């Protein structure tokens, strides 16, 4: 186990470099540069040239990437080109919002899908189970942003029912936890929607498969309570692949969904990245990319270790998972 972790950690550094280098190159190949947007109508060539030099935009790409990497080693992500705010500050503002919304959405999906999925597998012959299954299929076919826009239109405007707030995560300075929760309902549900539809079917299929296994049949034959067999015997086995799915989904928790953040005006990581690319604010784009690459690698490590913990066969080096 220790060796596995050590190998993985050793591999992480070059992987991180590759991911960020690719992002760096692609982002900097985008036409347009930040200084020309920042002063929309009034800058002259002289000031643009001076500022370009200051940012080092005329140096070769590789050299600029190395500088960036060197600064990163000192945990310095640089400052936004647009407003000179430190990128770490920007990330620190955006990250909690995204983690809150996407993390809650993931939690909701997991809880709902485990519960509903197990129930569906155990009672697949019931009419309601068929209805729910059909609804899940339907749900996975509808774009989540369409659902989000419709939800806002119906549940947050005077034209429908004015139940929820339209935008953001807070009604203003000093608003309490209840206010936050109220703001979170729609974005969390809309973000949880597709994941729940996917995971539920995953759990349902897994549980129905293990319900057919001999040990489960044996347990039932021994006269154990059917409910107990479902929750204590069949479900845990079906959850192993679910853990992997969740692990692989973690980076998305951090990236947030750009679309959902945009529709609900949550200024999290997704929106930060989207807007930074729009204004060619490279330090911010790269800051977000670095955080995302780090989380991606960390979640891969955690998934690996967890899988190895659950399934000892995977601890052998060289074997294919």
């Amino acid at each position, binding site marked *: 186990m220790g060796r596995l972790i050590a190998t993985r950690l050793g591999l992480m550094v070059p992987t991180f470099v590759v991911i960020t280098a690719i992002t760096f190159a692609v982002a900097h190949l985008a036409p347009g540069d930040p200084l020309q947007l*920042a002063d929309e109508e009034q800058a002259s060539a002289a000031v643009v040239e001076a500022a370009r030099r200051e940012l080092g935009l005329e140096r070769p790409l590789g050299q600029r990437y190395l500088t960036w990497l060197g600064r990163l080693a000192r945990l310095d992500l640089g400052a936004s080109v647009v*407003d*000179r705010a430190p990128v770490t500050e920007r990330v620190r503002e955006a990250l909690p919002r995204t983690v809150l919304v996407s993390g809650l959405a993931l939690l909701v999906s997991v809880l709902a899908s485990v519960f509903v999925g197990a129930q569906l597998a155990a009672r697949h012959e019931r009419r309601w189970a068929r209805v729910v299954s059909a609804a899940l299929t339907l749900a996975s076919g509808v774009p989540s942003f369409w659902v989000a826009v419709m939800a806002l239109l119906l549940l947050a405007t005077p034209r429908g029912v004015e139940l929820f707030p339209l935008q953001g995560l807070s009604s203003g300075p000093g608003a309490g936890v209840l206010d936050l929760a109220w703001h979170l309902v729609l974005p969390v549900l809309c973000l949880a929607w597709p994941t729940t539809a996917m995971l539920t079917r995953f759990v349902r299929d897994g549980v129905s498969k293990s319900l057919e296994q001999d040990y489960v049949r044996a347990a039932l034959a021994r006269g154990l309570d059917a409910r107990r067999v479902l929750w204590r015997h069949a479900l845990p086995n079906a959850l192993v692949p679910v853990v992997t799915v969740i692990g692989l989904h973690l980076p998305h928790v951090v990236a947030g969904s750009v679309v959902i953040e945009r529709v609900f005006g949550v200024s999290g990581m997704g929106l930060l990245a989207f807007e930074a690319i729009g204004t060619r604010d490279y330090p911010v784009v790269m800051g977000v990319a670095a955080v995302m690459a780090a989380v991606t690698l960390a979640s891969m490590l955690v998934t690996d270790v967890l899988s190895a913990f659950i399934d000892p066969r995977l601890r052998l080096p060289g074997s294919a998972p």
Partner: protein
Amino acid sequence: MKSSGALLATALVFVACGRCSSRSASPTPDAAWLEGRAVPEVGATPRRGGTLTVRVGVEPSGFTRIHDRYAEGTMVRYTTGTLYETLGRVDPRHPEGPLLPWLASAFTEGEALTVTLRPGVTFHDGSPFSSSDVKAVLSAITAAQNPTVAMRAALGELASVETPDALTVVIRWRAPPTPFAVRALLGGVPMMPEEALAGDFDTLPIHRAPVGTGPFKLSSFVPAERLVLARFDGHREPAFLDGVVVRFVKDDTVAAQLWERGEFDLMTRIPPATWRAVEQQPWAFTGYRRFRTDENAYAWIGWNQRRAVFADARVRRALAMAYPAEVISRAVELGLEARTTCPFLLGSTSCDPEVKPIPFDPEGAKALLADAGWIDGDGDGVREHGGQPLAFSFLMVTASQRQAKVVPLFQEQLARVGVSLTVEPVDAAQSIQRMRTHDFDAAAMSWSSPDAVTDQFELFHSSQADGGKNYVNLADPEIDALLEQIRAAREGDARVALERRLHRRLFDAQVYLFLTARPALDAAKRRVHGLTPSLAWYELAKVWVEP
């Protein structure tokens, strides 16, 4: 004005009726609402207290107008006048006339510009405003190493700034200044405390935490969310409002929905579609007043003169004849914008009244193109001349809802006269970079100014093609000469005559296809009073609210 009783009754009817809209005897909007006319208020006594929540669609990245990075034209109006004050100000009643004194009590132009400051003015931090602050601000602008190029260019070359006493400033130029330079100095330079400008200019805290002399001071700033201003009690004419909350909502659709939920006291930049959509809705006309105010802003389409297809003036005129102005007015502008042909404020004396917009005339366009030698010889639907097809690309800013509608409408008509327009979607960052470097065929943009007096030199002089704002690369000796003469002329009839000639010449050249003058479309809750629209936005210090 309605009596409060009637208002209350209306409100009660509304509450009783709920959201079921117009079932019983529904109220009807009045003429002022439909036209968006500001009705002068009489007899109301201003009341102190309360806050005003304003929707703003653009967000500043900093609050120092003199810094190139923060000089965005549209943001200036929200900060100058509330946070900052200038020496002089545009007369709201005669925007084209001379400036009125503001932080100055008088200014006299002779060999030098002598400014006498208003006594007793203090900054938000309590320090008194004096001539040394004026000198410090001007020095920060003129220091060659500072990123203040735009402001420096507008002021012209200053020779000296002298401060004989605490309330007198004498400013000299190297050469006699243009009237535009004097106006920019008096009306465009926000006054900041001397101490706040000490240090590395680019990273000064004042860019993010403004300290001015205006009627409001900064309370808090949450990027992407809100800017909270509080009344500055040390102001010579304290504001009525306790504070102003500026909420940054970029998306027009979202803003409209928030507005409908009653979250803004003052809703700004209403898109034409929303303006029309709320026209007959009781929640809107019972609860709000609308203001449709002329601004000094116009939209245009520019043809890059470095492209051979646009070399012939007849081609440019034919393109203008294929522009379906009436359909666009009906479908996009919804009849809210007036056509213009002039770079000056709509209806200004500087515009030649003889010049009329080119009417939509596809047959005329075809004839003119054929006349210029552009004929569809190979039958592919696109005209050619000398082996070159009459085809070009159009930079379309993806975020612009207006361009998303206008460009396909124009494209369709152009195709019918044998001109091929290809849409090239770009984001805003890319669009401006490409226009500045002349790397485009055609593009749409708009210019705006908070002042009615504008210098057209930077837009149309051939020397401004690189580094200036002459993106279309216009190089016309006659226009160059006119622009130089206008700069040298004093204010008055002589300059107006030159400006009219400039207007006519620009129209004949058709390098810009002038589209419409864009009004500001705003709405305010009926409990908000004292809003007087002007070119330089509202004077928030005069605004008061009913409890």
